[in-house]
């Protein structure tokens, strides 16, 4: 529900509410006033009605009285002259509007009757009695109609009888009465019988019978005005008792005003009101809509502008041009949009540019390269990675400030080189230069121009730096289409250039140690580990004193389904780099310990030496795991040897020492591998819980030729023995070496001359052969 609609409906609703409340109020006040006025009128009408009846009675009585004084009539009465009496009564009855005239004797007997013969008793004895004293009247119910009897005494000169005139009280009479005075339109006469009311007459204006409604539920007819519903309308009614005779059921006149009729004049007022309300409503709706639109349209415009700003379009902020709050909001909005636009431009620039050189950064360079490659898919392009030799040294020596200024200057020079349009700072120490549409030769030519440009010494104050540049080149599409690939490969070329004397090196996929194939290989190694496709080969170790093979070093071998045998150095280094070495070690431990268990009970038991990686020495779980494996196989710890390289220990000596001590505590013999080539410290050597040194093959393989090496080996053997350690020589390749080693008292020898690393079956065969030979020679 929009703001506009809500505002409009609120205004309209309040308008309607006020109008309706006013209407209800006015209606109820008017109605109350009408009812009160009706009650008052009904009260006076009741009085008036009775009085009017009395007046008419009096007139009739007066008229009858004149008749009663007529000498001829009196004479006829005296003489009992029936015919004359009846004709005189009928004649006079017509004059006063009576339908029946009777002459009643003082004893109550009817002496003459215009409707019937004489004789019988006059029906209304109480009326007769009253009329002896003075003319009397009563309203009676007779034959379902209301009659009004006026009884007048006849004197001749004494009271001789009473003339009773019966006049119908019918619609005509009621109409006449209504015409003569302000009586209500609704008049009806009812007889109060024992079984309820009987309607006798009804005025011409009466629309409904009210007696039944008034007497409903056995209620008495109201003496005071009362509201009653009859015939679907509402009336204010009051009953007026009329003079009665005891011989007739009481006759009551019911006077009533129709409330609806009373309200009739107000209908037109109400109609006019409703029209006015509708008109006001329409105007109100329109006005509210217009006002709301005036308020909401700028708000909607602002909202639209906000959406455009959200989408990045800052150009068109709304110009509201108003002086009110919304105008203020709009101008604040425009200001905000400007500020955001500026800030975004700045952030964008910062995001895409290097602060030091002002050149585009690597992200921007990548985007640029991508754009160019998309524009010229498959076409030639060259990406140059340019850097200064010795930059890390410069940073360390002269600090970042100088190196920043140097990079800035280098950037400036690069931009000055012809054809170098797209220069960016790819890393801290490298620039990338994109040469769209250029091939290998042009790229190399450009690279040399760059090298020349950067070769000039850098001077800053009294600082004078000799500079030398190196450039790596990657060529699209041969070296990739993606910016990332090109940058990486150009970087690889750059590093090659740094390592060599060549100033410019074009990337060579064959020499790329970071080629993606290695990653695939890692996945395959993991899979091989899971599926147990690796294999341990064992290189026997000869115990020189007894000339028996009493141990073997476990070496991992991986026969790749397509690549064939993968060199262990390659995939172990890979495993170390990719964090998979612990998994490999666990596998080797499990396999090696299992094998050692098998060999424990063979005729010629072999101790198995297993290599640990530097990364394994961080693994606090390792000793526990080895202990569990030993326990699992029921193997005593002295049946295995764990080999650790010198450099592995030295990398993180404290952590390594903790692990090595725990391993030694298990009773496992530890051996220092590749001893003599690392940065070994005798201080540490003293602390190491090792039982064995393995002299590096570097020293062993030249024992036959080099006297120095012989000295070193002899010294190590002596040192080891002095420290209580066994000493093993690796890389024994000829008989003289073996003889020398035996001569100086080296404990074990290992090498091709004894045996290369062999699968379990081959090793066991070898052992069996040697065993047989020994037995023969013995």
């Amino acid at each position, binding site marked *: 529900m929009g703001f506009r609609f809500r505002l409009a409906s609120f205004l309209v609703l309040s308008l309607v509410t006020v109008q309706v409340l006013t209407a209800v109020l006015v209606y109820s006040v008017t109605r109350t006033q009408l009812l009160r006025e009706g009650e008052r009128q009904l009260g006076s009408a009741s009085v008036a009605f009775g009085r009017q009846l009395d007046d008419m009675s*009096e007139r009739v*009585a007066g008229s009858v*009285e004149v008749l009663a*004084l007529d*000498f001829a009539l*009196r*004479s006829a*009465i*005296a*003489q009992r002259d029936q015919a004359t009496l009846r004709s005189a009564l009928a004649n006079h009855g017509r004059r006063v509007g009576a339908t029946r005239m009777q002459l009643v*004797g*003082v*004893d109550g007997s009817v002496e003459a009757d215009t409707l019937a013969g004489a004789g019988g008793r006059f029906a209304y004895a109480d009326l007769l009695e*009253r*009329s*002896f*004293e*003075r*003319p*009397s*009247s009563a309203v009676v119910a007779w034959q379902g109609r209301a009659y009004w009897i006026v009884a007048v*005494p006849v*004197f*001749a*000169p*004494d*009271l*001789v009888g009473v003339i009773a005139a019966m006049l119908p009280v019918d619609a005509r009479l009621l109409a006449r009465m209504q015409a003569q005075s302000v009586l209500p339109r609704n008049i009806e006469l009812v007889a109060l019988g024992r079984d309820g009311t009987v309607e006798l007459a009804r005025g011409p204006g009466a629309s409904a019978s009210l007696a039944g409604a008034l007497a409903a539920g056995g209620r008495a007819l109201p003496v005071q005005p009362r509201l009653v519903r009859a015939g679907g309308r509402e009336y204010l009614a009051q009953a007026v008792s009329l003079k009665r005779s005891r011989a007739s059921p009481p006759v009551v006149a019911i006077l009533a005003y129709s409330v609806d009729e009373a309200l009739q004049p107000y209908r037109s007022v109400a109609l006019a009101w409703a029209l006015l309300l509708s008109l006001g409503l329409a105007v109100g709706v329109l006005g509210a809509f217009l006002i709301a639109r005036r308020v909401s349209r700028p708000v909607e415009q602002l909202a639209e502008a906000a959406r455009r700003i959200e989408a990045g379009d800052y150009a068109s902020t709304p110009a509201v041009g108003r002086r009110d709050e919304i105008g203020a909001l709009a101008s604040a909005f425009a200001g905000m949009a400007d500020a955001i636009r500026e800030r975004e431009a700045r952030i964008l620039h910062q995001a895409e540019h290097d602060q030091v050189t002002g050149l585009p950064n690597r992200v921007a360079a990548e985007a640029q390269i991508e754009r160019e490659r998309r524009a010229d898919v498959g076409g030639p392009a060259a990406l140059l990675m340019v850097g200064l030799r010795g930059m890390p040294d410069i940073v360390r020596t002269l600090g970042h400030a100088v190196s920043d200024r140097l990079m800035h200057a280098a950037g400036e020079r690069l931009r000055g080189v012809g054809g170098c349009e797209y220069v960016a700072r790819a890393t801290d120490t490298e620039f990338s230069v994109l040469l769209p549409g250029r091939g290998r030769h042009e790229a190399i030519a450009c690279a040399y121009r760059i090298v020349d440009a950067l070769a000039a010494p850098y001077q800053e104050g009294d600082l004078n730096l000799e500079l030398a540049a190196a450039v790596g080149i990657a060529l699209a599409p041969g070296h990739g289409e993606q910016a990332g690939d090109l940058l990486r490969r150009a970087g690889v070329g750059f590093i090659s250039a740094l390592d060599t004397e060549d100033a410019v090196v074009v990337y060579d996929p064959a020499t790329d140690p970071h080629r993606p194939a290695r990653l695939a290989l890692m996945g395959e190694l993991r899979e091989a580990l899971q599926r147990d496709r690796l294999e341990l080969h064992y290189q026997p170790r000869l115990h020189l004193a007894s000339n028996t093979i009493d141990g073997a070093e476990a070496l991992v071998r991986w026969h790749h389904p397509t690549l064939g045998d993968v060199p262990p150095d390659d995939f172990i280094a890979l495993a170390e780099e990719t964090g998979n070495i612990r998994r490999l070690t666990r596998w080797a431990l499990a396999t090696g310990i299992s094998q050692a268990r098998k060999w424990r009970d063979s005729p010629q038991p072999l101790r198995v030496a297993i290599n640990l990686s530097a990364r394994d020495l961080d693994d606090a779980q390792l000793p526990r795991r080895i202990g569990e494996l030993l326990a699992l196989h029921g193997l005593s710890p002295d049946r295995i040897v764990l080999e650790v390289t010198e450099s592995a220990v030295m990398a993180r000596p404290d952590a390594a020492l903790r692990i090595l001590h725990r391993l030694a505590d298990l009773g496992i013999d530890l051996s220092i591998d590749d001893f003599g080539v690392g940065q070994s410290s005798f201080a540490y050597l003293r602390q190491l819980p090792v039982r064995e040194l393995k002299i590096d093959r570097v020293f062993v393989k030249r024992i036959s030729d080099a006297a120095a090496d012989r000295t070193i080996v002899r010294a190590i053997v002596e040192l080891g023995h002095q420290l209580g350690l066994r000493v093993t020589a690796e890389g024994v390749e000829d008989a003289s070496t073996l003889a020398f080693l035996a001569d100086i008292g080296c404990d074990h020898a290992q090498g091709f001359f004894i045996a290369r690393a062999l699968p379990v079956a081959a090793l066991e065969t070898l052992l069996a052969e040697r065993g047989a030979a020994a037995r023969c020679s013995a």
Partner: protein
Amino acid sequence: MIRAVLLLSALLAGDAAAAGLRVTVRDTRGAPVADAVVGLWPEDAGIAVPAAPPRRTLTVDQLDLQFAPYISVLRPGDHVVFRNSDRTRHHVYSFSPVKAFEFVLAPGESSAPIAIERDGVVAVGCNIHDRMIAYLYATRAPWSLRTDARGVAHIDGLAPGSYTVRTWQPRLRPGKPDIAQAGVVLSTGAPRELAVSLKLLPDARLQFDRERTRY
């Protein structure tokens, strides 16, 4: 005049042991009723009855649009003469069954004597002046009295004994007999007090007063 005669006769009788009767007539509201005629009828055969007086001729005058007297007590056989002392004509009539007549009297004129032969009430009116009304009360009662303005009628010198007392008044309801009280015993000594209560109609003479015709 009758009373005087009766008194006289009583005195002449010199009956020391005579009894008296004092009748007080009131209407139902307790107001004294004048012009009531009280007749005494002896019940005991031993009571001496005065001898019948000779036939008389009574005169009813018409003066100031009134009959005078209002009530004339007479015995059957008496005559009545109507005399017009007014300066207007009077149309005197009676429809009474006792005696019906009708004549016009010019001013100063008198009617011929009218003989009332029967006992009963003759209501006399004037057809010109509705308010004029007079009654001729013909009775055979040995003693007749008329109440005065205080509603009292008094008689002495009656022989002690039992009497029937009949009371009539023109305003009694027509068609009804006189109010009779039988067995009224009179004895010597203080006169017997007798109270009579009458239910009366309005005075017919006033019926035509416009002020009173309201009902």
